[in-house]
Every structure is written in structure tokens, then in C-alpha cells.
């Protein structure tokens, strides 16, 4: 706790223009989370910069949700330090929670009251006055295209509408940091794109965002920087293009076949050509080559092609291709 405080001073001092907007939205140092014998987060360090969208990727059980829950003060820190806008989550929880907005993964809207009352009462939890809460609720409903449903019961909304209402609710305190846990899981493509548009607009307005997602396209389109977590540790950190180039290269050659012999021959040929190979029972991935090796590697009974590397390749290279749960 003591060195926590001094860290924060350093963090503030580095950007020492003095304005509060230069304080790092999130600074984690040697952050650990344990549940009894289970270590969910094993001493991670990261910093989130003002105004960026920062992504947490990783398979289930990687420790991203535990990390997010510590940031939102829903779960106590086991050890290490965690500062949100220079405030300690351990000792200044109320202050931290008043400047962040949380969009949970599950729908925990209040379905005993109307759409607009969800926003009004939630604003009330922040101590926002009734008139102000009412004004903000109405503005938010307009912004999120829910104004026509203001007086509907929540359970009459579609999945996409509920998700928009959850985001609107998370913004009701005009937070400096918005924390989103899998914001588009379960939505249809139209609703996803609407949510993405909303989030990009918020980013343009300078809202810092923290995001967990299992969708690599979502991470690639929204995140300025991201970390890939696995088994409680951070395996890589960077911008999406940086990570792709560093970990998966420019091009990936991919071969599919149910004939293991054919796949073995393809893998051998590509390895000889200098590629790094990852092989599963029906697929070969080759990294570090360009597309010109495709044709000469082909074997009857297999499909082979090259494509640009993407974030999914990064994710799978780092966290492995097998299901670990």
C-alpha cells in the first residue's frame, strides 16, 4: 500500500503538466487476485492512457474479468496496487466508483420499473439530483434511440435495446472511464455494429474505455491498445497491428484436410521453407512466409491458401489452440 502511493506520485509526476486529465486512468503494479488457493491474477503491470480504448483479451479463466472487477471495486485487491485516476481502489472505492461507468456482461437492468426509471434511479444511486437525473435520462434515451420506449417495461426490449440501455446507464454519471465486459456478446450483427458506432463516438468524445471481448474483430476495430492474458499473466501488449506483425507476421498460410498424411507433408514442406508451424488434427497454420509458398506446398486431398494475419492468429498463437477448461 505504501509503495502504491509512491507509484501514483511517480505516475502523476511523469506527465507533470498538473492537469488532472494527465493522470493515468488506470495504473496496475504487481496486481494479484487470489480466491483461496486459486490464483486468478499473478502480479500483472499495465497502464491505460487517457482517452484510449484498452482491451483485455484472453480465454475464459485468463484473469481479465477478475482484473476488471478489481478496477470497478467489485472485488478486493489481494496484493499489489491499483490506481484509477490516481485514486486507490482499496481505500477510495466510493470516489473511484463515482468516476467510472460499468457496463456488465449480463443484463442486470431493473425489470420491475420502466426504461426511463432505470436511468433515473441509477442516477439516483450516484446522488445525482432528481431534475438532473431526469434531464440526463431523457438525453440518453434520445442518444441511444430508445426514446420511444421510455415508458416500456424493460423486459419488452430486444437484446440489442437492452444492451444499449445498459451502456446508456453506464454513462449516466458522465464517467471518465467506461468499463465494458463483453459488450456485444449475444447480439446480432446489426445490433453489434450499432454498439460499435456508439462506442467509437464515445471515444471521440474523450471517454477512456476498458473492454473485454472474445471477438477479435471487435478488439481490432475498437481497441487502440490491448493486452492478451493467459493463466493470470499478461503475455503481450501493444496496438493491434503491432501485435499482429510481431506475433503472427504479415501472412498466414492455412491448410485444411482430414487426411493426416497430407497435412504432415504440407507441414514438412512449409517448415523446410522456413515457416513456424502449428498443427492440429485437421489444420496446419504456417507463420513467417509469404503467399508465394502456397502453390508449391499443395498436396492432393488438402485445401491450402494464404491470407493476411489477424488478431485471432495472435490470440491463438499466444494462448494455444486447445480448450483448457
Amino acid at each position, binding site marked *: 500500500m505504501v509503495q502504491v502511493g509512491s507509484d501514483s506520485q511517480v505516475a502523476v509526476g511523469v506527465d507533470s503538466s498538473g492537469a488532472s486529465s494527465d493522470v493515468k486512468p488506470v495504473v496496475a503494479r504487481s496486481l494479484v487476485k487470489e480466491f483461496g488457493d486459486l490464483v486468478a491474477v499473478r502480479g500483472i503491470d499495465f497502464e491505460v492512457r487517457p482517452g484510449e480504448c484498452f482491451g483485455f483479451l484472453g480465454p475464459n479463466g485468463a484473469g481479465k474479468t477478475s482484473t476488471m472487477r478489481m478496477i470497478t471495486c*467489485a*472485488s478486493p485487491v489481494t496484493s499489489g496496487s491499483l490506481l484509477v485516476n490516481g485514486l486507490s481502489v482499496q481505500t477510495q472505492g*466510493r470516489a473511484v466508483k463515482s468516476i467510472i461507468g*460499468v457496463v456488465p456482461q449480463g443484463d442486470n*437492468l*431493473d425489470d420491475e*420499473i420502466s426504461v426511463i*426509471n432505470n436511468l433515473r434511479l441509477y442516477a439516483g*444511486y450516484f446522488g445525482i439530483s432528481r431534475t438532473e437525473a431526469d434531464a440526463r435520462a431523457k438525453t440518453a434515451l434520445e442518444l441511444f434511440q430508445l426514446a420511444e420506449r421510455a415508458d416500456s417495461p424493460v423486459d419488452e426490449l430486444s437484446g440489442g435495446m437492452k444492451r444499449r440501455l445498459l451502456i446508456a446507464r453506464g454513462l449516466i454519471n458522465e464517467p471518465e472511464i467506461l468499463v465494458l465486459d463483453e459488450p456485444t456478446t449475444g447480439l446480432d450483427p446489426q445490433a453489434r455494429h450499432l454498439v460499435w458506432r456508439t462506442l467509437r463516438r464515445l471515444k471521440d468524445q474523450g471517454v477512456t474505455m476498458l473492454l473485454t471481448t472474445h471477438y477479435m474483430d471487435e478488439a481490432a476495430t475498437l481497441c487502440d491498445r490491448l493486452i492478451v492474458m493467459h493463466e493470470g499473466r499478461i503475455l503481450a501488449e501493444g496496438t493491434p497491428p503491432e501485435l499482429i506483425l510481431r506475433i503472427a507476421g504479415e501472412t498466414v498460410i492455412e491448410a485444411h484436410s482430414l487426411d493426416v498424411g497430407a497435412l504432415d507433408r504440407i507441414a514438412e514442406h512449409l517448415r523446410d521453407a522456413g515457416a513456424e508451424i502449428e498443427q492440429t488434427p485437421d489444420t496446419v497454420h504456417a507463420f513467417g512466409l509469404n503467399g508465394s509458398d502456397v502453390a508449391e506446398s499443395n498436396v492432393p486431398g488438402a485445401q491450402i491458401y494464404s491470407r493476411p494475419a489477424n488478431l485471432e492468429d495472435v490470440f491463438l498463437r499466444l494462448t494455444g489452440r486447445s480448450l483448457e477448461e
Partner: protein
Amino acid sequence: MILTPARVPYGFRVWRRNWTVFRRFALAEVGPLFVEPLVVLGAMGIGLGAYVTLGGDESYVKFIGPGIVGGYSLFAAFFECTYGSYTRMAIRGLYEAMIATPLSIEDVITGEVLWGATRSLFSATVILFVLSVMGFVDSPMAILILPLAFLGGILFSSMALLVTAHAPSFWTFNYAITLGVMPMYFFGGVFFPLERYPDVVRELAWVIPLTPYVAVVRELVAGSLSMTTVWGLLYLVVLGAAFYYLAVARMKARLIR
């Protein structure tokens, strides 16, 4: 510290949420509020009462009146803070939503206790109104039953939330009612004077939190206060504080990991 006056305004934000929902369904709630105690007064007081002789010339239906105030204060708080609170906590995820705001779990439980106490107050108000219309209230002192009902409600709500904190499902509450609430209702001095019991049992009956509450209600209705009221109030306050503290601690253990 959890028991600070500074907590109350935060708890009130949670109270307001429950009040908003209650107002929506108020019409549906008011009917039963009147009907239930009338049924008990009618069946037990007038039906059974015809066969019951008390010491003085007091009618049985008049005797059980204050007991019904007590019983329904208990029921109102208990149902609100078991079935109601469990639904909000485990089914709707509202506690989780609330503690993502500046509210802490302590604030949420405080708000729930204040709301349960309000439900006790509503019940006591309705029954007291019925009793006074029927001419069963002897003293204007009876108006003090209203703040007493709020105090008793804090105790009963805290006890209920302690059960809720350990409940794996709604079934738990059925056991709590069979093993806890109904015995309190039948042995807490609602339906017959404690003097009926052998001495040892009479003393033991005071362990039941409903007993002092009903005893104080009786004295207020009659307008004759004794040391029973002093000790009764003290007991309610101490027990209320203890159960409130326990309820907060156990909820915290359940929800904050």
C-alpha cells in the same frame, strides 16, 4: 464502521428504488394489507374468542389486537427481506448493479433494512387504524406504535436478511417460516398471555424477539407503561443492532469476493 448516521443517506437511495416499485403496485398491495389482519381478527378473535375467557372482562378479540400488530409487522418485514431481497439480489442482479455505483454493499443492506422497516410501519399503520375504528384502542399513546413498528421492522428485516445471506434458493425461506417465523408468531404472546406458561418457559419466551415487541404494543394500546416497555425497547435496539451487523457481515461475505 457500518452503523454510522452517514450511511443513512446512501441507504435511502436504495430505499427510494424499492419505494418506486412499491408505488407502482401499491393498489394491489393495499387490499391484502387490510384483509389479512381482518381475517385473523375475525377467525381467532370472534370465532375462537367465543370459547375463550381471559382473567378480567376483556374480550379475546381485543386482547389479540396488539398481537396482530406485532405479528404482521414481523411478516411484512420478513417477507420483504427474504423473498423480495433474494429476488433483487440473486434473480435480478440488482445488488451487483448497485454496488457498481458509489453505493457499497453496506449501503445496499442498510437501504433494504430501512425498506423492510417501512413495510412493517405500513402494516402496523393499517392494523392500528382497523383496531381504532373497532374501538379496541384505549389510549392516544398508541400512535407511538408507528415509530415502534419501524424499530421492530429494523430488527425483523435484519434477521430476514441474515437468512437471505445464507439462502441457496427460495426453499430456504419456507424452512425459516416453519421453524422460525411461525413459532415466534404462536409463542411470542400474540394469542395468549405469557402467564399461561410455566415460569421457566415464560422467561424463555422473552428470547423470542417478537415477545418484547408485542408486550410494548400492548402497553401503548392500553396507555399504561411499565418497566416492561423500557426493557422491551432496550432489547429491541440491542438485538436489532446485533442482527443488522450480522446481516451486513454475512452479505458482504456472500457477495464480495
